[in-house]
């Protein structure tokens, strides 16, 4: 069943790629094969593999585990929130905010997760930013740590 969904998704993706790639033409071209051919070839291959999966789905063995929906949803949301807040909150704070739900999803208590987040946020910041010269955003804490 879910192989069929994957196959159908590939068919849609292939069709979408082909549709988008249609218009790709160079204003000036010096070669027999332009920028359109390769994406169209890939779109065809993707649709082909997709129809194969729709026609002959493999034995059901994987699929999403329903009992983990909540924790996975929580962790996924935390990942996106981390990405979104990375610059505005700054690395140390964003890491703390991310580590709390993710740590708890992995079975840590809220105290452990929070402590882990704070320690990691600041330790990594010091290691990367101060020691290894990888510039990290300080965001809301810029008044203490400098930077931005």
């Amino acid at each position, binding site marked *: 069943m879910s192989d069929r969904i994957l196959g159908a998704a590939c068919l849609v993706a292939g069709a979408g790629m082909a549709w988008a790639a249609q218009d790709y033409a160079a204003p000036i071209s010096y070669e027999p094969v332009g920028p359109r051919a390769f994406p169209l070839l890939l779109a065809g291959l993707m649709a082909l593999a997709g129809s194969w999966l729709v026609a002959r789905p493999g034995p059901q063995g994987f699929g999403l585990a329903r009992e983990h929906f909540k924790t996975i949803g929580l962790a996924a949301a935390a990942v996106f929130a981390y990405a979104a807040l990375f610059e505005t909150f700054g690395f140390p704070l964003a890491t703390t905010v991310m580590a709390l739900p993710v740590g708890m999803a992995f079975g840590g208590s809220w105290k452990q997760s929070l402590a882990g987040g704070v320690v990691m946020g600041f330790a990594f910041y010091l290691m990367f930013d101060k020691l290894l010269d990888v510039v990290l955003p300080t965001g809301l804490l810029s008044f203490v740590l400098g*930077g931005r």
Partner: protein
Amino acid sequence: MNRKAALMTLVLACAAATAVAGPLDKTECIAPAKPGGGFDLTCKLAQSSLMQGKFVADPMRITYMPGGIGAVAYNAIVAQRPAEANTIVAFSGGSLLNLAQGKFGRYNENDVHWLAAVGSDFGAIIVAEGSPLKSMKDLVAAVKADPTKVVFGAGGTVGSQDWMKAALTARSAGLNPKSMRFVAFEGGGEAITALQGGHVQVYSGDASEAEQQMKAGAKIRVLAVMSDKRLEGSLAGVPTAKEQGFDIEWPIIRGFYVGPKVSDADYKVWADTFSKMMATPEFNKLRVERGLFPFAKTGPELDAYVKARVAYYRTLAKDFGLNVAVAK
């Protein structure tokens, strides 16, 4: 010591003492490329020169924001970080060309403050050492005689700087750039290899690159440099395109801009700092080490130059049938 410098020193000292964030405090340079790329080198040049001349107290930090020869960084600065006075962003002639072709999204050249140009490279017409072509005239004559026999190699795509230089050369031979023979390679190194292998006849590359490749033993020859006067160093013997009767100039300047909402005062502090820094012999030594020819312009002078240049690129792109951005 003149009064202005004394005042500046005082201001700087105050800024450092009270930790009020002045523009030169905790500076950051955004290199719109991956670490090790050309923009990284530009940032590093500013970083080491500013540090050596003690213009900044803390070493300048470098962040990397690659994409579209500066397009990503341009958008980030204009849209999200317009007022950051201590952040400068590196740009190059390639950025300006892309800007002119509308590849920088919805922004144009009036959306930032152009700060300083610290050096320049120049376009060069390069052939293999054993090539029968000895001058620009020979090349143009050969292109005129049979455009299919002269294949232009380039380290960039259609619409890139290398393509533009080839197109300008073809145009001066009375040829529509659309009908010249052109092969795009992944970067100049590959193009020079193809030149030596005889796969292409001409490479419309850069002077400093040619210089360094020749030092490294590449069997190539420079027919012309696209600068207004002859270059310093080992290419001093190469005539300019202009000298040979072709009015083609192609500087590839490298410099910095700051965000649109940076105050005029901060902008001026930066511009003056760069002017002073570029007058030092240490800077010139570092510049030469990075294969850049002299090209020092700051503040309003650079701003005017950049805008004129972008306008020129826009005309060129239109003439050649490429997409162009409409100036607001």
